[in-house]
């Protein structure tokens, strides 16, 4: 808990103004203050904000404004990464929601019971950008022209997995070649990454070694980005204690003492092999074996 110490001077909130409207003449003809006047606040801190005449200042709704002593403070949050979660199956709610709650977001609502997975889909952005022409060779034909140039055949599937995916040229004209890489064979127009390599436009850059590099200018276009049915699913996430703070999935390496949470079988056997005397049982790692 943070401790903050502040000091405020009440004088800054004390009324020192005496409106003319509270001045009256007494029986001797002397000007005095009518202390019974509702507009008289001299020397006090009013509960509501007043103007110089001692009248209440009203807000847009005609209500009196509470007089406050304002103090700024800064709140912070300390946080640590909990690490990876474990997905578990669950039974969805039988009554599914048909419309999203207002301003639905997964953090506020969590995995909202009854919310179908498409509530979590995001609008599909079209990602575009520039790249080099290195992927052009992936869609060329094995044949060469009589002049030895590469040939690009429209709709020729050059994918390594032609049964399911399509990689190939969609369009070629005098200026450009339009081609797709790894599109779904049954939905070529809406899947995969589309590239357009311009035949007569070149880009000059300097590579990591300071050398000039020239390639045909190429633009790419990705259609199915964002969260959608291909990369989103709903699961009940639970936290296994041994994965607390583990931010990547554990990968098996050749280290036998790898810590897998509650059971370090190899480590215990190895430690036992070091025990030669009964004293070792007591002293080894502060009595680790004995306990």
């Amino acid at each position: 808990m943070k401790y903050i110490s502040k000091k405020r001077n009440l004088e800054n909130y004390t009324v020192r103004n005496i409106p003319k409207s509270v001045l009256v003449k007494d029986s001797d003809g002397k000007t005095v203050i009518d202390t019974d006047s509702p507009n008289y606040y001299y020397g006090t801190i009013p509960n509501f904000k007043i103007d110089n005449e001692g009248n209440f200042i009203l807000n847009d709704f005609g209500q009196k404004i509470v007089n406050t002593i304002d103090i700024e403070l800064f709140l912070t949050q300390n946080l640590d990464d909990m690490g990876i979660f474990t997905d578990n199956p669950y039974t969805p709610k039988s009554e599914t929601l048909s419309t999203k709650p207002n301003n639905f977001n997964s953090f506020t609502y969590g995995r909202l019971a009854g919310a179908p997975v498409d509530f979590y889909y995001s609008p599909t952005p079209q990602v575009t950008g520039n790249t080099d022409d290195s992927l052009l060779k992936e869609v060329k034909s094995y044949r060469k022209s009589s002049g030895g140039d590469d040939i690009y055949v429209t709709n020729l599937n050059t994918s390594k997995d032609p049964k399911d995916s399509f990689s190939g040229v969609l369009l070629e004209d005098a200026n450009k070649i339009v081609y797709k890489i790894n599109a779904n064979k049954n939905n070529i127009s809406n899947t995969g990454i589309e590239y357009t390599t311009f035949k007569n436009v070149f880009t000059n850059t300097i590579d990591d070694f300071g050398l000039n590099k020239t390639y045909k200018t190429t633009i790419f276009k990705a259609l199915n980005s964002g969260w959608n049915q291909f990369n989103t699913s709903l699961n009940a996430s639970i936290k296994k204690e041994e994965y607390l703070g583990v931010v990547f999935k554990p990968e098996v390496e050749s280290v036998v003492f790898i810590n897998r949470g509650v059971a370090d079988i190899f480590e215990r056997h190895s430690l036992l092999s070091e025990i030669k005397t009964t004293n070792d049982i007591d002293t080894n790692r502060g009595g680790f074996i004995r306990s």
Partner: protein
Amino acid sequence: MATGNYGTIRPADVSVEDVEMFYSYTPNRESLSDVELIPLNPSEVLVPANNPNNVTEIFGGLYTLKLPTSIFGTKGFYNIIIRPRQIRTTIQDCSVLIDNQDVKGIVFDINQIPTGLQSRFENGNLVGYRVEYLKEESGTGQDKIQNLFRIITSNNRALPITQNQGNSNASVAYTFNDNSTSVFCTVSPSSAPSIKPNAVPFIGNAQQGVIITNTFFDPVMLEIEMVEFDDETLAYALFSNQTKSLEDGIYTIYNFGNQIYRQYNLYEVKDQFTGKPLFEVREQKFTIDPTKDFDDITNF
């Protein structure tokens, strides 16, 4: 294995609905009376600042305490506690997952939670909340189990399932089911250390009272000392305008805005028989003479 975690400190953008506030007052530091904490409504006194570039977006971290002068307008010391809001409920059950029998957890009934707070118990929303425990036996002098807490690491709606244990016994385990109003929460620590496999940490008992608290910000205690004088007011006496009325002996000190700050009567005390002056007196005057307005006096 690539392991590791990261930590950081970020400006809190907690909603005032997730905040609790209390204050206490003492006229001086030497007060011997017990501290009496009085609740404050955060929605009335705590205002988050908005991003100047986008007025509908919370700035983060910066909040303004608007302390009403009706409460905080007295000289003395005010201690203000700002802490995450607490939710009190009872543990419905303590059990394991039917598919992961080594995953232990505590179960809450959403219907026992106040309506406005039930959304906090939706799947995954309690992650990071802290659970503190109340004693099961009453009349022990202290209802809370001190220095014991657990952190909720996951929560999902779950349904109890009976699993046969043989010998006419059956136990209950839980399976995730969004149709349920029970919420299964895993907490940390809840598993045994490798050197003592049977030393399973306490995570609570069924029907035990608990306090569930969000961890959206670090609690803060402000000590605000309300004073009547500071450098500015002392400077009035030294540097501001003053008048001394020779007719009635009223000595007036003005603030830097030429408003009457203090008035005094100046007079001499003389021996009643000989007329010999004995004392010169400056006595504070509490009934202000409004005719000593500085602008009126100097406007000639």
